[in-house]
């Protein structure tokens, strides 16, 4: 009996993992991120979005890399979410670099 339960559990886990369509998108923002506060604000906005799995922010590279479940969210939804905290975001194409961080940016309030 216990073997059957274990086999079923393993099969269910494998199916659940297979069903997920995990993808990665790299965003850059306007205004630029220039401090710890900007980073925290962006992370706090995105981490509660449905389907988001991981967020990596690089202020020097001006990138927000989001790993997400494509069945639950889309890059467009993530961009819309950032609008709520007054950041306009766009996706970076493969190999594209964002404008480097400049000192004259400021955090939106």
């Amino acid at each position, binding site marked *: 009996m216990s073997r059957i339960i274990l086999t079923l559990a393993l099969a269910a886990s494998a199916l659940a993992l297979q069903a997920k369509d995990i993808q990665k998108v790299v965003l850059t923002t306007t205004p630029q991120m220039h401090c*710890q*506060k900007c*980073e*925290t604000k962006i*992370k706090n906005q995105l*981490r*509660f979005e449905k389907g*988001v*799995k*991981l*967020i*990596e*922010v*690089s*202020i*020097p*590279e001006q990138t927000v890399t989001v790993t997400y479940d494509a069945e639950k969210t889309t890059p467009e939804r993530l961009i819309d979410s950032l609008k709520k905290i007054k950041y306009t975001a766009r996706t970076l194409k493969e190999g594209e670099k964002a404008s480097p961080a400049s000192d004259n940016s400021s955090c939106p309030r």
Partner: protein
Amino acid sequence: MTWAVATFMSFSAMADEPSDSISTYNLEDYVVTKRRPSTFALSGPETGFKVGQDELFKAACCNLGESFTTNPSVDVDYADPATGAKQIKLLGLAGTYVQMMSENIPDFRGAAAPFAFRYVPGPWLKSIRVSKGASTVKNGYEAITGQIDVEYLKPQDDPGVTLNAYFDSDTRLEANADANFNIVPGLNMEVLGHAENRFSDHDSNGNGFADSPSVRQFNFMNRWNYFSERYIMHAGFSTLSERSRAGQIVSHHGHRPENPFLINLDTYRYQAYMKHALVFDRDHGTNLALIASASMHQLDGLYGIKSYSVNEKNVYAQLMFEHDFSESHNISAGASINYDYLGQHIVAPDAPGRLRERETTPGLYAQYTFRLAEQLSVMAGIRGDHSSSFGWFATPRFNLKWTPVDGLDLHASVGKGYRTVHPWAEYNYLLASGRQLVVEQLQQEAAWTYGANVAYTWHLNSEQLKFNIEYFYTDFKRQAIVDYDSDLSAITIAALKGKSFSHTAQFDVTYTSSFGLSATAAYRLNDVKATYGGTLLSKPLTSRYKALLTLSYKTPLELWQFDATFVLNGGGRMPAPYRLPNGEMSWNDCFPAFPSLNLQVTRWFRHFSIYAGGENLTGFRQKNPIVWASDPWSNAFDPTVIWGPIHGAMAYIGIRFNFGR
């Protein structure tokens, strides 16, 4: 190696700033994402650490005292069941030798000292800065074992509202609120509120006495901040009212005594402060600042047939000038004045009845800091003060930090501290004992503290391992000691005649991973001795060692947080026991080592978070904490000899709401 150096330097440079938990650094071709520790070393020459909000969220932290639950350096005493007086210990010595400050203003002195740690609600805290050993002379002469400086949430923080509610299995309910408003550009205002109450009384050991006082507290603070290019202002006021009821307030075997022994404390505290700074030259950090505060503290205490009332007034002012001659040379100089008045009325055997204490202490100080890039910083300061009660005295202090190689910090410090003792105000909770409280003629306390510390931080990619070893020695020249040993029918607050010292040695290692796990393991040895009745003895009720292990894990998106704190408190000496009316001895000669385990889980949502946990999950309790509870009116009664938890395991749940943040 280059990236490791740069990471360390970035970390050091930010070590004194309010923290968020994750940082990203670009170092040549490397991009490193790292989680910053929630407790971090002070960046200057002083030895110590700063506890950030992330650390405070690891436990319930209902008040300042409970904020040190996860900390290896600061011990939190167990509250006595009569008054709830709960002190911390730093370097093995009582909290009275730590200078308490609120945002760099000396605070909670005299009658407020025994209960100070429950006057600061945990949810109001932004950070706590703990300086060990000799510290700066800027804030006065009182720090002997160090300073604890509390930073409250700031008016200039993001506008919005946070609400917090907490409830535990002891039926304590707490509610906290803080709100920030940006009035006009540059002008911000903040309101902080706190209310707590307990809805039932517990007597888990069935001795007819409540295990802890039933405390009802209301606490309110209003703060303002204005800043412009050349002028910065902070100001605020606070009020506190507290009612504490303890003693025979619970039913015992179905009935209450006709003439119950009650311990009632009613406290009212009013406080206001202001800080003004004129900035003359930002490039050279040239500024002139005026800091002033005033407080009134009224306590009316009843302890069976004894009573103690105090009206304490304090006024403090400081004028401070600072200037950087260059990046390497900084000078700070200033003048201060402190005025204390304590109008007291004591009803107890052989007590003085009405007693007025007044002291005015003006002083001058100068402090020079030398910095040689990131390798060396030296801080030397001296102050001269004149007490209207004790005359002139000088306070020299010296701190050094040397970084001979990357990641290795060496600290050394030496300094003197003084303290005027207000024995009835600071030890009024001892009136709950059936033993007579005897107060001898006391002098101003004076002690030297010497310290040395070696810290090494090792970075491997985005992970960090930090080793720390430290030693402190405090040598009292004059001291007021609480003597339970010389006279078994009395507790004597006596002037030290002989030696009194404290040696503490601590080793701790902290691991911070990039994937959300952090852990601290620490071990500290205490050797605290004083001369009681001509004999050098270990300080009673002081653990000989403390071992601590904390584990914290946050999921990748920090939606869940799991925290565990395990402490093993070493045993220690009990005061000399006395014979009870039934022929038994009041207690054993020593108390044993005992474990304690706290667990908490937190779930974060966009606008709120829920936390739940348990404290003292090992269930260890001090047996018979109230001695001779069957007859509290007798001389044999004593509820003040507490070395361990009185409650068993306790569970709690809390919720925090954020609006507009």
